[in-house]
């Protein structure tokens, strides 16, 4: 992975539905190298009281003959950072670091891929779906949100997916309930071979649980609080159960892996969900994180983008 630090320019800003904003940013160095699941860490230019960048998954990329490539992010307003991004105008500068993180691993052979997204968390799955489709995989989608207003781009999801299930907690669209209510049946019906998911922590845990029971490989994209986004601050860690590396000295154990560098995409079966808030009891930091066994049993995987290697912690 080799991230750039570039000054992007806002090409367009759109309001999507009641709650979401999207920004399309001209930044060819980023747009042309980013892979699905990777993220950008951005900051408007100016003197604000909040000093840190803000991380966003890449939602889409656009390359059009003759035009500079752009990437698009989509977000909801949570605090000062997103408020300020939502107030940007066309031609405003945006300080962009990226692409960052590891990204999803794509299947090597034709696979039936199930994408499970919750709320705004579904953002990276649209970019992933586009790439999976280009590579000829079958895509099914489960998209959930609290209410229909918060469903991310259900239209696109329906277009991209062979089967698309929608859930809302208030029943304002699709089935009433949460994505995991329909997950098991959908996996069966679609014959899914690998699951990709992104959304709230609790949803990821539940999806990983269902997939674990079904012995299905599941790649989860987590969102941890990040100060740096490129691996130096150690604030974004997530506890993983890790195996001993081939030829490595460690014995395996629990590792706090950086979600900005070793992640944000992890093997759902490795993540220690329940221990999230408390420190793991034992930890073997000498062990190495090996790339998650994310390959579906029936298909091999390749990294989603050029250079999207998993780098061991400490790198």
């Amino acid at each position, binding site marked *: 992975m080799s991230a750039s630090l570039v000054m992007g320019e806002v090409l367009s800003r759109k309001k999507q539905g009641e709650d979401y904003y999207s920004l399309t940013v001209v930044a060819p160095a980023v747009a042309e190298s980013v892979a699905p699941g990777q993220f950008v860490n951005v900051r408007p230019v100016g003197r604000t009281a909040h000093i840190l960048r803000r991380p966003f998954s890449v939602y889409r990329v656009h390359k059009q003959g003759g035009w500079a490539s752009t990437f698009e992010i989509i977000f909801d307003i949570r605090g000062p950072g997103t408020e300020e991004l939502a107030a940007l105008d066309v031609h405003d500068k945006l300080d962009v670091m990226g692409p960052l993180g590891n990204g999803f691993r794509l299947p090597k052979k034709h696979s039936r891929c199930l994408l499970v997204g919750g709320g705004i968390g579904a953002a990276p799955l649209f970019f992933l779906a586009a790439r999976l489709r280009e590579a000829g995989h079958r895509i099914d989608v489960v998209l959930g949100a609290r209410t229909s207003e918060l469903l991310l781009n259900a239209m696109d999801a329906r277009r991209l997916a062979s089967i698309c299930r929608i859930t809302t907690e208030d029943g304002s669209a699709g089935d009433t309930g949460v994505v995991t209510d329909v997950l098991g049946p959908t996996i069966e019906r679609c014959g899914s071979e690998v699951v990709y998911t992104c959304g709230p922590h609790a949803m990821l845990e539940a999806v990983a649980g269902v997939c674990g029971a079904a012995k299905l490989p599941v790649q989860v994209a987590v969102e941890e609080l990040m100060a740096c986004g490129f691996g130096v601050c150690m*604030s974004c*860690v997530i506890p993983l159960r890790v195996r001993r590396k081939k030829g490595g000295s460690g014995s395996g154990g629990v590792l706090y892996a950086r979600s900005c560098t070793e992640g944000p995409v992890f093997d759902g079966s490795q993540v220690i969900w329940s221990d999230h808030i408390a420190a793991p009891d034992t930890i073997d930091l000498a062990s190495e994180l090996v790339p998650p066994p994310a390959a579906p049993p029936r298909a091999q995987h390749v990294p989603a983008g050029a250079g999207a290697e998993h780098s061991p912690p400490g790198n």
Partner: protein
Amino acid sequence: MTRPSLAVDLAGIRLKNPVLAASGTFGAGREASGFVDIARLGGLITKSMTLEPWKGKPTPRMCETPSGMLNAIGIQNRGVAHFISEDLPWLVRRKATVIASIAGNTVDEFAGVAARLAAAGGGIAGVEVNISCPNLEDRDNMFAHSEAATARVVSEVKRALPAVPLFAKLSPNVTSVGDIAAAAVAAGADGLSLINTVLGMAIDVNTRRPKLAGTVGGLSGPAIRPIAVRAVHEVHRAHPGVPIIGQGGISSAADALEMILAGATAVAVGTANFINPRSALEVAGGLSELMASHGAATVAELVGAVELVG
């Protein structure tokens, strides 16, 4: 006019420029090396390393505050052995000027890390002793909060690793940072690093929980710069001969110059690296221009050169 020289002598370490990367904000250089040639930095203070790997604290480990941030990382690091076998050779190859930051929960742990570094035989230009750690032998009080504990750590580290200059990294969370500085210097510190983060806390009013799993954390960033400038000024006036690595909220050349005028011989950029990993280099570049506009030929002539009134 000739271009001003950025070179400084920091307690015997010859730095090409006075702007270092602060401990814990630059790893051991690898991640940032994609953005910046680390050989061009004044120097790199490593993430604090301990005798055994430390797992660090649970998450959330950071939150943002007005013009600053709080962190409670808990010095997650892979231990001195990993540093010596993996990071140090890489740093040496990259021609980085390295100051190794060491930490521990007992005097013996500090001394142990120092002994390992001594045994590694070279590659580091200096050692920074991060005494803002809980002292398990004194009801978890920070070493840096006690003159006696500070002196003990410093003298044991110095004994174990006499070959390179030792910087004691002081905490601002004390009644008199000058007294702690005096204790460190008397115990053999060749220089001082100040300030480490300021103790702080934030609560999420929606969940009613502390924003940090560790409850209390360290405040860093522009918000604390005035606190750092004052600490550096106070210590420099009390100990004018002792070189200081000034840090706390530096993100521009003017910030660095302010710290130098207050009494720092070199400065370290911390939190600003998170926003821009090229910060230290850009600060050094800007400092050169600022010096030229001030007609200053060397950094040394600016150290402590604040003009007090009355």
